[in-house]
């Protein structure tokens, strides 16, 4: 980045580190944050993208190894602070409140809700006429579900689903997030848990089923930033808020798919989108 002069050097030169978790969307969003800073402020940005999971990013942030990354309201409430989640507004408010304890700030959500969902192969859905979770529950005793470990265990994951919808899968396989898609692709499992904005859904032609009883909590994504960074660089919060509400689920899915399916570089996709929005110059 070299847009320092554009701001007339009003900011004292410094350094910020942007982190991300290890999935496409989070990496894309990290690049967006980084590019925004680079193009608008006289700050050197270091990218520590692709950290090994929520936990690593979360700890790195609190340590000060990174100053910001994008996290999700539900994750903050349920995972980091292990509290009950509520509806979208409640959860968001609670998340904002909670992170203040750790001298962090959860900024305005950028619009998408990367919530959990369940997906099946399109042809299986056609064959069994699956549209909703309730449809799935009826045939679930014939199906095998593959999901991340945490989904298998969290009360707001599979255990809760089984309770609310009365699902009883023939087998439940916990596995690494990255292996869910090849597993369903090769027909080794029938159902997987997915995120609503996953680009891989497009790649593998999976059908997302409807959460007809609104079981899953909301996962609205927004930058999670250290207070001290915000104080040191006062323009930062406003800069990120320019993206608030600009990224809906479909847009996010489209961007993710550019990386996952077309194999484009995360940074390029991020930059292109920011240009598209007119937030930076092309």
């Amino acid at each position, binding site marked *: 980045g070299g847009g320092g002069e554009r701001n007339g050097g009003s900011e004292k030169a410094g350094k910020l580190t942007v982190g991300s978790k290890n999935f496409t969307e989070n990496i894309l969003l990290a690049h967006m944050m980084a590019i925004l800073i680079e193009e608008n402020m006289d700050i050197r940005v270091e990218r520590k993208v692709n950290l090994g999971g929520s*936990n690593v990013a979360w700890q790195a942030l609190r340590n000060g190894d990174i100053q910001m990354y994008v996290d999700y309201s539900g994750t903050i409430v349920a995972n980091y602070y292990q509290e009950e989640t509520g509806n979208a507004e409640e959860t968001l408010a609670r998340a904002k409140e909670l992170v203040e304890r750790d001298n962090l700030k959860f900024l305005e959500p950028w619009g998408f809700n990367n919530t959990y969902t369940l997906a099946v192969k399109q042809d299986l859905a056609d064959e069994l006429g699956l549209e909703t979770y309730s449809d799935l529950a009826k045939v679930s005793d014939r199906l095998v579900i593959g999901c991340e470990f945490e989904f298998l*265990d*969290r009360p707001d994951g599979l255990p809760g689903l089984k309770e609310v919808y009365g699902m009883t899968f023939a087998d439940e396989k916990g596995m*690494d997030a990255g292996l869910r898609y090849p597993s369903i692709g090769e027909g080794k499992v029938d159902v997987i848990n997915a995120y609503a904005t996953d680009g891989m859904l497009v790649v593998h032609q999976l059908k997302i089923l409807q959460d007809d009883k609104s079981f899953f909590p909301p996962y609205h994504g927004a930058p999670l930033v250290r207070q001290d960074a915000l104080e040191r660089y006062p323009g930062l919060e406003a800069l990120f808020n320019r993206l608030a509400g600009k990224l809906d689920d479909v847009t996010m899915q489209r961007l993710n798919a550019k990386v996952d399916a077309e194999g484009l570089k995360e940074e390029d996709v991020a930059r292109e989108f920011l240009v598209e929005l007119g937030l930076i110059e092309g």
Partner: protein
Amino acid sequence: MNRRSLWEQIVQQLEMRHAELGMAVLQHIKLVAVSVGIAIVIGVTLGIAVSRFRRLEGPVIGTAGMLQTIPSLALLGFMIPLFGIGELPSIIALFLYSLLPIIRNTHTGIVSVDKSVIEAASGMGMTDTQILFRIQLPIAFPVIMAGVRTSTVINVGTATLAAFIGAGGLGDFIFLGISRSMDALVLIGAVPAALLALLLDFVLGRLERAVTPKGLKI
């Protein structure tokens, strides 16, 4: 963030999950035992082959080494189309990861046997095979066992990765704990794994001592 102390959490989790934990330990042992068992057979065989035919050394040890560099997730991923998910691909992956120390130490152990002993043996008309089984392998036994024990212990650690591909074992607890930031869960998985490694190493050590002929002991 910890409203309960770590110890309380561990007790709570253990109450909830002790049955699963028992299953996971058994499953872990099974994964390790089967994969190391096969690795010993194949690894020792390859080690022998390599020490017999020196030109095999590069290819065999090189391949075993390259296998080590493939990250487990990648290896497991490549295996899904071939072997699906669950135990089978896990065992195959664990087996592949266990080969190198066994092959290398078998090879080194065999070629380090005192030349005059080999000369005496071949001078009395023992075939290469007889020399191998009756002289070289027994004398190289401590070095080979060093490889096997290293391999087994590493394998207990690697076997946690079976969780990635739905084969269960102690990795389920550990990775769940990691992704949920629950140190209690991580410990519930990691401590038995460490104990298991110690136990297996101890058992192998005993076995080594029992099988090593008295004449070779220090």
